[in-house]
């Protein structure tokens, strides 16, 4: 059986072969790279890809999203390099894939924070500004300036409308906040019905944007950040919302908005 990885993912191939308890060899090609997996009685027993073998090779192969595969039934593996159960193998692969993407996000954030593209003096001034006492509005603007593809940041109260805001693109803020308030109320209702406890944040991912709502300690207040999905990084967005959410909470207390 031959096919394309665009039509059937490596993880799906592993699952189907293992569930059917097949003994087989699957060879993969992706550009100039090659790899292979061997199955025996419903488990992966050997994998190789370039210089890698065993589980490491499986985890690399699972990330391939394009290429071809060629399945030869009843071909026995020449060796055993994988002993982990296939379900556990796929779970670990999924975890590593998520971690890899988080690592990339963290690296991107670290580079940005270190100001690798800016002069040291400029970065020093920025650090001093960041760690001095800032008003809620200054925090909103600081946060907005750090988000690639930024659209809107606002601090708002469910019952009292928006308090502080900054917009990088045209938007009817009052109406948006009203809609988001409805959204937040529905999410809170959902959380109660599901007995999920107090909500920390909620996220809407659309075809084009991220919209993150981060609650500011008190249920009534939240920080809303919207950004262009093609430019913003979700890990960075969450990290910044958390960091600035905590700073915002202190600033709101200093302003007397929160007690």
């Amino acid at each position, binding site marked *: 059986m031959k096919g394309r990885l665009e039509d059937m993912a490596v993880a799906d191939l592993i699952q189907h072969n293992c569930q059917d308890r097949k003994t087989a060899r699957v060879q993969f090609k992706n550009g100039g790279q090659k790899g292979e997996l061997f199955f025996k009685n419903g488990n992966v027993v050997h994998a190789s890809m370039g210089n890698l073998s065993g589980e490491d090779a499986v985890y690399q192969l699972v990330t391939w999203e394009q290429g071809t595969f060629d399945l030869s039934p009843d071909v026995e593996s020449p060796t055993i390099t994988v002993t982990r159960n296939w379900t556990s193998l796929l779970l670990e692969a999924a975890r590593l894939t998520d971690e890899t993407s988080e690592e990339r996000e963290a690296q991107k954030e670290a580079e940005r924070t270190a100001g690798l593209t800016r002069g040291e003096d400029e970065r020093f001034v920025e650090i001093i500004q960041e760690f001095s006492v800032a008003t809620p509005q200054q925090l909103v603007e600081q946060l907005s300036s750090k988000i690639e593809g930024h659209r809107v940041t606002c601090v708002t109260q469910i019952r009292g409308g928006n308090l502080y805001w900054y917009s990088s693109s045209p938007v009817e803020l009052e109406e948006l906040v009203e809609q988001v308030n409805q959204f937040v109320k529905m999410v809170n*209702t959902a*959380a109660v019905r599901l007995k999920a406890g107090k909500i920390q944040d*909620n996220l809407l991912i659309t075809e084009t944007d991220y919209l993150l709502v981060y609650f500011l300690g008190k249920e009534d207040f939240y920080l809303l950040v919207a950004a262009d999905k093609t430019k913003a990084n979700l890990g960075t967005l969450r990290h910044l919302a958390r960091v600035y959410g905590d700073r915002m909470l202190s600033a709101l207390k200093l302003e007397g908005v929160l007690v």
Partner: protein
Amino acid sequence: MENQNPVAVVLAEMNRTAQFQASTLSLRDGLLVASSASNGDNPAAQSAVVAKLAEAANLVRSQMAIGAPEELSFNAEDGKRLICRPFELNGHELILAVLVPKRGQPYRRATSQAIARLRNVWQTH
């Protein structure tokens, strides 16, 4: 697996493999198509909740002129997450929702695979 409805089987298999607490497949209006939940969870209530969330997501989308919702989630302080993934299948607007019990537990790959399998099941039944 609680029944042999092929859609429910896909959900149950996804829950088992990815260790989700519960999952539902609903139409956008909240009508439950299939579910798989561990004891104590209420799929009908979850489905109604999911429909409310989808409605809320559409409200926000219409205001911001942002694209169609691809994923909607909330994180609770106790670590639970509800993930809702809307998708279209043969003209039907569906929402796959999963309740993820632990913080940091991966879900994207598992839900993407389940959606791909649901498409296959839908076509063959």
